[in-house]
């Protein structure tokens, strides 16, 4: 058989597979879309319900408590700048998308990470999938996803899930696996049950690694929501996409600044939450 025929055949079945999914699994994707947009809508409602200065102040106070007073002031000022640029609604929409996507990603990724941490043999299955998720160019799955999940935040959220899950899975698994051996021995020699071993020994020692995973998930999600502007994510991603299409460079820079501000604020906040061994008080 000619190689080109094999390739044609492969492409044919990929297309057929997608049609079949669209025809026969529509209810599943309807349901997924409903769930995704439900989470997104809920997060957005909370953020939109509050006036901009309230949100900016709350983030400022959080940043003060978690990081420092100066960073708190900077956070409030930076968020006020987003409002001043006329991008407040878009910024909140992006934040809602990132928060809901990362939330769903963690609900899935943390248990998977814990499982692969305990059963390294699962790596044979999980590793290739994670490699695929992290290396596949986003456009490859963004466009077909429109056919299944429709144009809108549902698809954007699904695409964000794809990039947000791998770091959380990998770092959770790593954290569970690298419990210092002397503490495993301590646990066993004091007669711990497996559950006690997990909650009192493995999880506390894995915590910094897990938090680093959560932080990385958020960062990947921020990267993705901009690309997802192409499938109607709404928010800053869509603003950038529209502005770039119409060569409105000024507007696209504004939106880019807003996304950078949001990313830095969330990054520092989640990093500050990592339990610090140096200062446990």
């Amino acid at each position: 058989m000619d190689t080109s025929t094999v390739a044609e055949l492969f492409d044919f079945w990929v297309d057929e597979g997608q049609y079949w999914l669209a025809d026969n699994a529509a209810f599943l994707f309807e349901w997924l879309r409903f769930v995704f947009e439900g989470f997104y809508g809920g997060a957005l409602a909370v953020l939109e319900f509050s006036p901009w200065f309230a949100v900016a102040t709350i983030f400022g106070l959080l940043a003060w408590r978690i990081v420092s007073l100066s960073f708190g002031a900077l956070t409030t000022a930076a968020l006020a700048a987003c409002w001043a640029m006329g991008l407040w609604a878009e910024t909140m929409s992006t934040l809602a998308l990132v928060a809901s996507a990362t939330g769903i990603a963690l609900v899935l990724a943390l248990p998977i990470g814990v499982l692969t941490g305990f059963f390294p043999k699962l790596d044979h299955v999980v590793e290739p999938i994670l490699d695929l998720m992290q290396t596949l160019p986003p456009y490859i799955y963004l466009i077909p996803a429109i056919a299944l999940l429709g144009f809108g935040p549902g698809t954007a959220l699904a695409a964000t899930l794809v990039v947000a899950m791998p770091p959380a899975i990998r770092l959770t698994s790593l954290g569970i696996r690298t419990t210092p051996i002397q503490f495993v021995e301590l646990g066993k020699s004091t007669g711990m049950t497996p559950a006690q071993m997990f909650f009192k020994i493995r999880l506390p020692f894995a915590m910094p690694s897990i938090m680093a995973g959560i932080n990385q998930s958020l960062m990947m999600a921020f990267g993705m929501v901009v690309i997802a502007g192409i499938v109607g994510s709404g928010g800053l991603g869509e603003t950038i996409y529209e502005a770039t299409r119409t060569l409105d460079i000024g507007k696209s820079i504004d939106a880019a600044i807003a996304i950078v501000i949001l990313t830095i604020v969330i990054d520092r906040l989640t990093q500050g939450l990592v339990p610090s061994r140096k200062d446990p008080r």
Partner: protein
Amino acid sequence: MITVGARKAEPGPNGSRHEPAGGAMLGSPSNSDDVLVDCRSLWKIFGSRASAAMKAVQERGLGKTEVLKEFGCVVGVANATFSVRRGEIFCIMGLSGSGKSTLLRMLNRLVEPTSGEVFVKGRALSSLDAAALRELRARHVAMVFQSVALLPHRTVLENAAFGLEVRGVAKAERHRAAEEALRKVGLGDWLQRYPRELSGGMQQRVGLARALAVDPEIILMDEPFSALDPLIRRQLQDEFRQLTKDLGKSAVFITHDLDEAIRIGDRIAIMKDGAIIQIGTPEEIVLAPADDYVAKFVAGISRLHLVKAHSVMVPVERFRAERPDVDPRRLVTTTPDADIDRLIDLILADPAPGIAVVEAGRLVGVVTVRSLLLGLKGSPTPELAPV
């Protein structure tokens, strides 16, 4: 700090330091109630073909190197048999790679023996299910680690209460017990500190308090003081021995330092290449090393406080034959367990040709300057033997 009485080599509070022929324990299965831990022919072979290697060892008597060559397996512990009595501190001394840590971990089944059996309080460990094994570890056999392994995000008090927390003891009760244990090791004022605020020696005290808080009968000590500086180490050794004796605990103590084993142990087992090559009291090990390997270790050990009058005295008849002019009954007297340090003092204070050793009112031998010097030098000579 704990005040430590001047324990040189006097018998411990329960007198277990002077037992006749400790070496005879080797291989003698003892069913007495006094035996807390009884190990019979323990083997540990590491490697994927361990059971085949074990079979070959039993059937063909392969040695360590043959097992490695033929099966690619490492013999960790080879045919270890010993028992630990109630109230006894049993030291296992060996260099790194001698299998002592593996042997210790078989006593609470952190390591499964490839062959042989461990009895703790008369119960075979291999017969315990997971729940019974947890129960045994939580209540009866506590362990102290070289790395200390204090949880960094918990206070000293919470760390000391850890074993009781695992057992499900209520907070107030376990904190009370932990505080008591911490006071015993001299850390009563440090309850709310974090481990990183403590020095290495203090951290190991917390490790010991954590083990004591669960009130176990047996404490397994895995080279607990090896990482400490010499002064602190000696202090902790004395405190540990005193505390263990005062509380009536038994301990199996792993060390690579013969000085430490002699300072702490009621009996010492010496390991080499996975096998126990000698078991005995410190005095027995020093005076009668089983082979050249043990003799090399013993060479540098000070005998001043270790060797007793009964080991350096000449029999009465021989003394009479040598010195018919002296009546041994008129010499200055001492007891059989007076150490060499004491004997030197007596000889210096009195110009008489010897010191009479009297046990229960009966003259059992005479220490002369010559016999003292021979004993101090450590060469066993026929001169000291009965005629």
